[in-house]
């Protein structure tokens, strides 16, 4: 005979204000099997838990129902309490009478009725609960970091520091990411390369870190502590182990008209290239879209000049398979495509550039060697207009609804740097709002306005029109002065919104992690678990989770590393015991369940059965690997003979809940 205890929580007034908790406790006390039914102010508090523990011991309870907040909130709290009192934690059920009752209903009578029904459903379910025991699953002591920007580098360095092996997978030929392209960093104005490249070198020299550059994640299988990942190393037609990075091939390559991605297409590179001087690994890569040898079979200059014999035109993509305990996603961001913004004439006029293009134009290693010149005629610009929020905080289809966060600061930085280097240049910044929270950020912006006399104008630019004399007419409104402006500019710089990298969504599908509508990865809890994804063992680092500046990215990278280290330190982890199991006597080995299982957790075994006539017979039956099963339940519905069931959410338990609600 079951002995069930019911505990109804007031949650202060959160529940008690709209639900008559005493009536709920009274009504549930009459349910079959219920031996004790109590209410208490705060059931989750120390004394509330003590109440539950005492009842378990004194009343020798075989099941506990707590009517309180969402099980997503306190299910674990009460399970632990039950375990400490000697009751199997899976004999506890929660009736959600706060989020799904008291908070959404106003009428006390109907809300109380609903709370009683929810309580009855939980009592009906707990009657059929069975004690479950968690299995232990070993943890592979190796981490994978996807993305080799500053976020990924920081995470990898921190994990390696703790003594674990880390692999970085980077899709570009070099690590470094967006930060490598940036000229100076706000608010200190120190050069990005000076602070980033030592970290890149540190990552490459750390013996715990393996960098797979020019590689992509192809497939992810497994679960927390035991992921199996296939990494595709794309053919770079250069033997990484032999190439010394001397750069002779890049000089001699006859095909020099390839747009240079690193300089945002503002100059050209050769078909065999090293993205930039401090690239890590410093290894040449052949671009098969432009290489004459790979396209037509005629050329071969690079292989002739290479003294190391590293060029290999026959190289193929290779797949590496590796096991990992934890995966950190650091796929970063990209500026949005501005093709749809005709009003800013970005595609018509070369002197309308994005902010990232301006970074390259001003960088000493950029196309103009650090002198700011107009891309069209290489003349010195005298009037520069910055347009903020291009595609950010947009309510239409073209742009993004969110604030890209970093644009206000980098625009202030650009304006300041230009005014400092070229005091004869007039700089205008059109903004909707200036948002500069952050340590020393607002001071920085005010310096741009007060010390450097940058003209900040509140208003949006309506139209940018290139004129025949090479100037650009910028038509804008000044909202504070309430007047229309026409500015004859030499250059226009657009602060394009940033968006998650295009590879993020397919990756999220592989990792079974969640994304929001803007394709940013969703964290497990927006406030309390900001660097973990909802999928165990997958962590988030940097701008893949939301727009971030460098200090925030580094902080989050380290936080993600700390979480990953916490996992890798464990020798084994406890698995969810709510997994599928098959009743071998009913299973007919039809394979329906195997086909729907997304994890490959179901295999078939030949098992010997004793028949009624005392003979034995070998039959093929399904067998679930509890360490691999994640407990979705797809197989339970697919099974035609009803042999498959899910612990914790069994057919009979759900049916009992249905019955309790409908009666």
């Amino acid at each position, binding site marked *: 005979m079951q002995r069930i205890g019911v505990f109804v929580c007031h949650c202060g007034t959160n529940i008690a204000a709209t639900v008559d908790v005493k009536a709920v406790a009274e009504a549930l006390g009459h349910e079959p099997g219920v031996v004790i039914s109590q209410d208490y102010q705060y059931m989750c508090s120390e004394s509330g838990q003590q109440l539950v523990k005492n009842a378990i011991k004194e009343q020798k309870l075989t099941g506990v129902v707590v009517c309180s907040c969402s099980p997503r909130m306190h299910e674990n709290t009460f399970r632990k309490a039950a375990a400490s009192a000697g009751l199997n934690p899976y004999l506890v059920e929660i009736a959600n009478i706060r989020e799904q009752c008291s908070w959404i209903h106003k009428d006390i009578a109907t809300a109380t009725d609903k709370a009683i029904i929810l309580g009855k459903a939980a009592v009906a379910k707990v009657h059929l609960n069975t004690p479950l025991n968690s299995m232990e699953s070993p943890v592979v002591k190796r981490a994978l970091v996807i993305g080799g920007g500053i976020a990924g580098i920081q995470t990898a360095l921190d994990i390696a520091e703790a003594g674990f092996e880390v692999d970085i997978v980077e899709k570009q030929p070099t690590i470094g990411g967006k930060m490598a392209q940036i000229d100076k960093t706000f608010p200190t104005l120190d050069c990005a390369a000076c602070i980033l490249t030592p970290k890149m070198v540190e990552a490459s020299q750390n013996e715990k870190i393996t960098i797979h550059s020019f590689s992509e994640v192809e497939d992810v299988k497994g679960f927390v502590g035991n992921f199996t990942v296939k990494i595709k190393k794309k053919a770079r037609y250069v033997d990484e182990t032999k190439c010394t990075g001397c750069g002779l091939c890049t000089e001699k390559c006859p095909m020099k008209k390839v747009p240079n991605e690193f300089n945002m297409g503002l100059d050209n590179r050769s078909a065999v290239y090293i993205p930039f001087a401090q690239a890590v690994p410093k290894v040449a890569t052949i671009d098969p879209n432009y290489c004459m040898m790979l396209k037509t079979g005629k050329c071969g200059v690079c292989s002739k000049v290479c003294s190391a014999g590293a060029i290999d035109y026959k190289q193929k993509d290779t797949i590496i398979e590796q096991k990992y305990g934890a995966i950190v996603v650091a796929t970063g961001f990209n500026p949005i495509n501005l093709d749809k913004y005709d009003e800013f004439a970005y595609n018509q006029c070369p002197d309308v550039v994005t902010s990232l293009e301006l970074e390259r134009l001003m960088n000493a290693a950029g196309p103009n060697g650090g002198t700011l010149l107009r891309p069209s005629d290489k003349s010195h610009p005298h009037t520069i207009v910055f347009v903020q929020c291009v595609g950010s905080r947009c309510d239409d289809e073209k742009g993004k609804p969110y604030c890209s966060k970093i644009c206000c600061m980098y625009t202030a930085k650009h304006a300041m740097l230009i005014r400092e280097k070229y005091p004869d240049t007039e700089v205008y910044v059109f903004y909707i709002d200036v948002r500069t929270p952050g340590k020393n950020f607002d001071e920085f912006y005010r310096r741009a306005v007060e010390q450097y006399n940058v003209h900040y104008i509140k208003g949006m630019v309506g139209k940018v029109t290139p004129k025949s004399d090479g100037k650009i007419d910028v038509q804008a409104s000044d909202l504070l002065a309430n007047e229309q402006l026409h500015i004859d500019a030499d250059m226009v710089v657009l602060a394009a919104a940033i968006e998650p990298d295009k590879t993020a969504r397919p990756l999220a599908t592989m990792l079974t992690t969640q994304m929001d509508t803007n394709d940013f990865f969703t964290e497990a809890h927006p406030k309390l678990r900001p660097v973990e994804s909802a999928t165990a063992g997958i962590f988030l680092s940097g701008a893949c989770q939301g727009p971030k500046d460098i200090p925030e990215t580094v902080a989050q990278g380290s936080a993600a590393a700390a979480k990953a280290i916490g996992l890798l330190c464990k020798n084994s982890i406890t698995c969810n015991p709510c997994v599928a199991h098959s009743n071998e006597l009913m299973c007919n080995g039809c394979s329906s369940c195997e086909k729907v299982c997304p994890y490959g957790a179901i295999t078939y075994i030949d098992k010997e059965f004793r028949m009624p006539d005392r003979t034995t017979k070998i039959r093929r039956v399904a067998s679930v690997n509890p360490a691999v099963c994640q407990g979705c*339940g797809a197989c339970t519905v697919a099974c035609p003979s009803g042999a498959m069931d899910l612990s914790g959410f069994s057919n009979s338990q759900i049916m009992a809940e249905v019955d309790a609600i409908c009666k």
Partner: protein
Amino acid sequence: MQVNDNFEPVIVAFCCNWCSYAGADLSGTNRLNYPTNVKIIRVPCSCRVNPMFILRAFQKGADGVIICGCHPGDCHYTSGNYFTRRRITLLYSMLDFLGIERNRTRLEWVSAAEGAKFAATMEQFTADVKALGPNRRLEDLRCRKQ
């Protein structure tokens, strides 16, 4: 059809643990009202909902059953909601054959961020079921509480 103003339908909602149950919690956190008729059963994934559970609910006197899962492509278990979609499509054709109104059963995608959608969906579904009147065809009168 004769509409009884006092008719309060019994509605069973199956919500997947990762998206829709969290969405329901969110509508609670945001204090978004929806009718008390809706009672939620938590399942790990919408694909855990056996069509038998839906028929059982109707047999036991439910007037409407709604299944909520993650949006296509967002399933915590990668592909569970696709199974649900197919199974419910099949169930619809069976319910059509039996002459049960389609509007009594609904499949809806609600993410963990869509508290407002959850509340609005439940509001609408309750109104739809109210308009249909009580479920008489599938209810097993022997199950009715005396």
